[in-house]
């Protein structure tokens, strides 16, 4: 493993806040951030090596996003997760960004750290924007916003082919043949509506990728 973190952020959360964590992970990924998000959370690691899990979680990311709540603070495992992140932040350039989900008291270790407050935000998207800004400011370069929405996939369907922008709910077009789907994708490349086309095999894997100059 290289010393360069693979992920921009790692999400730390209690099982009770699993839904918010999944929604936030999705929003951050849409903004082009690489997110370490294990939906099962730390509490499902019974019998596994928690130290190893946390080491991997924090060594592979630059920011720990701590979803602080009554539930988070009531579990010994998530508290341990928090303590590990705080210790890493003290010893290295690691960053902690708490997001307060409810009226719980922030623990002492987080009181000197600026936090985001979901209660005062109009939506989770606003919180995601703030996290994106923090990560961009720290790295000195902004990840491309919504890069995946520029990518187009050509996907096999029963008796048809979808031309679909990544991350969108529905296909942009559904056509009868692969050649027709490729022709449509070419027009999207030419008019600048996309920068990359990913063509998939019928088993879902990638057959090829191409852009305007490839």
């Amino acid at each position, binding site marked *: 493993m290289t010393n360069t973190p693979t992920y921009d952020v790692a999400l730390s959360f209690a099982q009770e806040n699993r839904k918010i964590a*999944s929604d936030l992970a999705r929003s951050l990924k849409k903004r082009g951030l690489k997110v370490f998000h294990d*939906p099962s959370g730390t509490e499902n690691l019974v019998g596994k090596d928690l130290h190893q899990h946390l080491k991997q979680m924090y060594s592979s990311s630059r920011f720990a996003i701590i979803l602080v709540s009554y539930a988070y603070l009531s579990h010994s495992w998530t508290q341990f997760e928090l303590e590990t992140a705080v210790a890493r932040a003290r010893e290295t350039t690691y960053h902690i960004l708490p997001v307060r989900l409810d009226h719980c008291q922030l623990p002492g270790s987080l009181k000197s750290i600026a936090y985001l407050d979901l209660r005062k935000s109009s939506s989770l998207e606003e919180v995601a924007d703030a996290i994106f800004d923090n990560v961009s400011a720290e790295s000195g370069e902004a990840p491309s916003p919504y890069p995946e929405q520029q990518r187009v996939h050509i996907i096999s*369907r029963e008796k048809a082919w979808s031309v679909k922008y*990544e991350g969108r709910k529905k296909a942009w077009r559904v056509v009868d043949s692969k050649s027709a789907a490729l022709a449509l994708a070419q027009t999207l490349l030419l008019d600048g509506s996309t920068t990359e086309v990913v063509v998939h095999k019928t*088993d*879902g894997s990638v057959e090829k990728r191409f852009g305007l100059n490839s």
Partner: protein
Amino acid sequence: MAKAGSEFERNVFINCPFDPEYRPLLRAMLFTVIYCDLNPRIATEGADSGEVRIKKIVDISGNDIEAHDDDPERLVRCLSDWFGVNINPDLPSGTRIWHAYNEFNAAFEKEMEDRGYNQDEIDDMSVARFMYFVYLLYTPPEE
């Protein structure tokens, strides 16, 4: 998407051959289970391999799933329908899951390239590690 129930009720036991020819089906199946916010449980799931099967309440061994003709897309649709009837009607459609699986594969391929995996390593990747990358790279459905 409403939750299927307790953690216990969300466990899905997958009984599928691990032969290379079944790999596309197994991987599509694992993705579908995870995307539907269920917990895949399989016999070779690393640290969980000793877990007693009695704890795994839903069995998609194949007997309960209509014929899929070894086609991953059809399998995804079958699973979506079957989960809708047997676990939770409020799950993403088969088409949406299939699109998401294709998009995941693009991210997966890029991730493998970045991490220096060769094709043999990708093909022979353990189920536990593949699931790790699904959790890491997939984008959960909007509710």
